[in-house]
């Protein structure tokens, strides 16, 4: 029998998030979620020789810590689904060199963590795996260098800009053990509403988030107040406003339970991050550091996490293409 509801929602019987690990940089440690992050470093190069190598190390260390915290060994992990922001998934590929785990490298830009949780949960519920590692990471300096300009170039960031989160978040999904359950995932479609401004990612991604959220509620038949917390990945302030408008057009209204990992990650006023955090690590670190603990403690009982990603390709952008986006909705349920 197909374990699927509606057009795009997969339903799981037994997928548990048995551990989480989060790593962050200096700015993340100073943000509102700083005290929940497992390990933070002042050094943007994390003792390495370049930002790219630091991103690799964040990825590797977060993955290792999640395995340790789950009280299993690397040989117990059947698959890893992981990705990052470096070209050709550099951080995950190079980070996985030292880990003895069968690996699927995935790319969903800033939605990568949602993609890895979705595929990991499917692998477990399909009984192809007992334990799965899901990791996603990014690095502010490496992302700026790759996608935008050198850091020391004296440009102004417009008010709609977001700040790539430095760090990595990692989870172990398992068919055994305790921890919050993943009950459903709704896989998003690629949506492109013609936004071309790379300094306004929230606007580019909001329609994808709206589409994933709408599909999820349509497929499951739930009401918007079913969840204690509905958290998008990295829409930021502008994206969240647009998302509210788009959802209202579809007849979905949220009260205080709609938030955004990017907005939670930094303090906009004191940290000069403009619209909020972004990047693969944004939803990964916010979930692994904060939301996971809230779910474990039962302070949040039901949660929908919607990592959002802008899938633009730098060459296509230079050729005048707009920004295609995606979002995946992951439903969690606390044990207690």
């Amino acid at each position, binding site marked *: 029998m197909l374990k699927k509801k509606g057009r795009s929602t997969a339903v799981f019987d037994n997928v548990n998030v048995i551990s989480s690990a989060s790593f962050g940089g200096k700015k993340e440690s100073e943000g509102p979620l700083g005290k929940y992050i497992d390990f933070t470093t002042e050094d943007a190069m994390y003792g390495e020789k370049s930002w790219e190598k630091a991103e690799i190390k964040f990825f590797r260390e977060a993955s290792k810590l999640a395995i340790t915290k789950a009280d299993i060994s690397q040989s117990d992990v059947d698959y890893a689904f992981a990705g990052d922001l470096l070209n050709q998934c550099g951080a995950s590929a190079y980070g996985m060199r030292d880990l003895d785990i069968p690996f699927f490298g995935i790319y969903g830009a800033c939605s990568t963590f949602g993609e890895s949780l979705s595929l990991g949960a499917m692998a477990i519920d399909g009984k192809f795996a007992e334990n799965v590692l899901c990791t996603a990471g990014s690095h502010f*300096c490496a992302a700026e260098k790759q996608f935008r300009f050198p850091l020391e170039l004296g*440009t102004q960031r417009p008010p709609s800009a977001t700040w790539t989160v430095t760090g990595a978040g990692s989870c172990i999904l398992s068919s055994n053990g305790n921890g919050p359950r993943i009950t459903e995932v709704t896989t998003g479609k690629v949506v492109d509403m013609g936004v071309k*401004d790379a300094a306004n990612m929230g606007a580019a991604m909001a329609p994808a988030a709206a589409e994933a959220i709408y599909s999820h509620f349509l497929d499951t038949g739930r009401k918007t107040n079913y969840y204690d917390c509905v958290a998008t990945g990295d829409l930021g302030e502008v994206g969240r406003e647009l998302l509210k408008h788009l959802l209202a057009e579809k007849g979905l209204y949220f009260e205080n339970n709609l938030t955004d990992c990017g907005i939670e990650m930094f303090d906009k006023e004191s940290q000069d991050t403009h619209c909020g955090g972004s990047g693969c690590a944004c939803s990964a670190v916010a979930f692994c550091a904060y939301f996971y603990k809230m779910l474990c403690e039962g302070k949040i009982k039901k949660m929908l996490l919607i990592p959002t990603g802008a899938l633009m390709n730098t060459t296509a952008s230079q050729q005048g293409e707009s920004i295609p986006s995606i979002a995946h909705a992951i439903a969690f349920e606390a044990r207690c």
Partner: protein
Amino acid sequence: MDYVKAFVTGGAICVIGQILIDKTKLTSARILVLFVVVGCILGALGIYEKVYNFGGAGASVPLSGFGYLLSKGVYEETEKNGILGIFTGGLKACSGGVSVAVLFSMLAALIFEPKDKK
């Protein structure tokens, strides 16, 4: 008085650039290209010379002054060397500035390490 003139001229040229950045979302690279090209054309038309005579460094320090320098150089060279001056004038005029910028870029790269942004 020359200082006030330089301040106002330079400031005004930068404000034009700022309006372009905020209103058109042009990247700084495109803005710099635009200023050099426009400076060169205005120089060729004899307009930028008037701005320079008024503003002094206020007109020569902004990148439009770099364009003006190119047009001035190519005019002088064609008058001195004829048709081949078309190809040598521009680069000759800006050779000092470009060489210095290349040298300092290399020195800076040797001395400094990339820094994190707070």
